């Protein structure tokens, strides 16, 4: 069943979904609270994932810096995760790359801030 909707069939006709349903199901089931998924929900999730990949790629390319160079880079994606509300949930797995020297400077600044007014950081984290 899972193989049915994968790739193109013998006649070269476009299949409904090109991502492997079996793998999508494994990912869905890795979520502990999910008990069962019907076939339609599985097909729809696979299709949605395809649309998502297309949208993330085109959005990042259009808003990215590589348009003149005809390139899509990691930083374009990281920018999308940072700037777009819809793609905000990706911010953790697509962190912006910064130079180590810059990071160290940030750490130092943060430490100084913490020393200036202690405890305020914790309050922020909770709110």
């Amino acid at each position: 069943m899972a193989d049915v909707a994968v790739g193109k069939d013998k006649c070269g006709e476009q299949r409904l979904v090109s991502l492997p349903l079996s793998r999508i199901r494994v990912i869905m089931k890795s979520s502990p609270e999910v008990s069962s998924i019907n076939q339609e929900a599985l097909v729809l999730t696979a299709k949605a994932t395809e649309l998502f990949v297309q949208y993330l790629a085109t959005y990042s390319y259009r808003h990215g810096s590589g348009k003149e160079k005809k390139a899509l880079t990691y930083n374009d994606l990281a920018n999308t995760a940072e700037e777009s509300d819809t793609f905000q949930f990706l911010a953790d797995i697509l962190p912006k790359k910064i130079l180590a020297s810059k990071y160290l400077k940030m750490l130092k600044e943060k430490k100084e801030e913490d020393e200036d007014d202690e405890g305020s950081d914790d309050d922020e984290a909770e709110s």
Partner: protein
Amino acid sequence: MAERPEDLNLPNAVITRIIKEALPDGVNISKEARSAISRAASVFVLYATSCANNFAMKGKRKTLNASDVLSAMEEMEFQRFITPLKEALEAYRREQKGKKEASEQKKKDKDKKTDSEEQDRSRDEDNEEDEERLEEEEQNEEEDVDN
């Protein structure tokens, strides 16, 4: 289920093909960008599943269904996916219906042939057995989905 972490990855070849088809011809996609999109896709599946599961729970259902996934898209602010997803669902239902009718048609054809030669019949029966085995496999798969 997912014993190895790589089980949660989607196949790179397929992801790359989807990206290439979405972007204008000749755009270079860095290797890092590809793997980032692939990871993002896995996270998207988890996020969508979790949202859909909330809707199923609200409806006091144990099994995620198509409407839960559609509601999840709305909640996740991917409303733009809803129309193409509904179309895909229609297409999928048509496909399933078509398959069912095709197998019923085959059965009817077989019944008509029961009067024909002994040899032919046995050959048909062989085919029928194969089909039944296939159907059984499909059923097992579906049960698997529900567990």
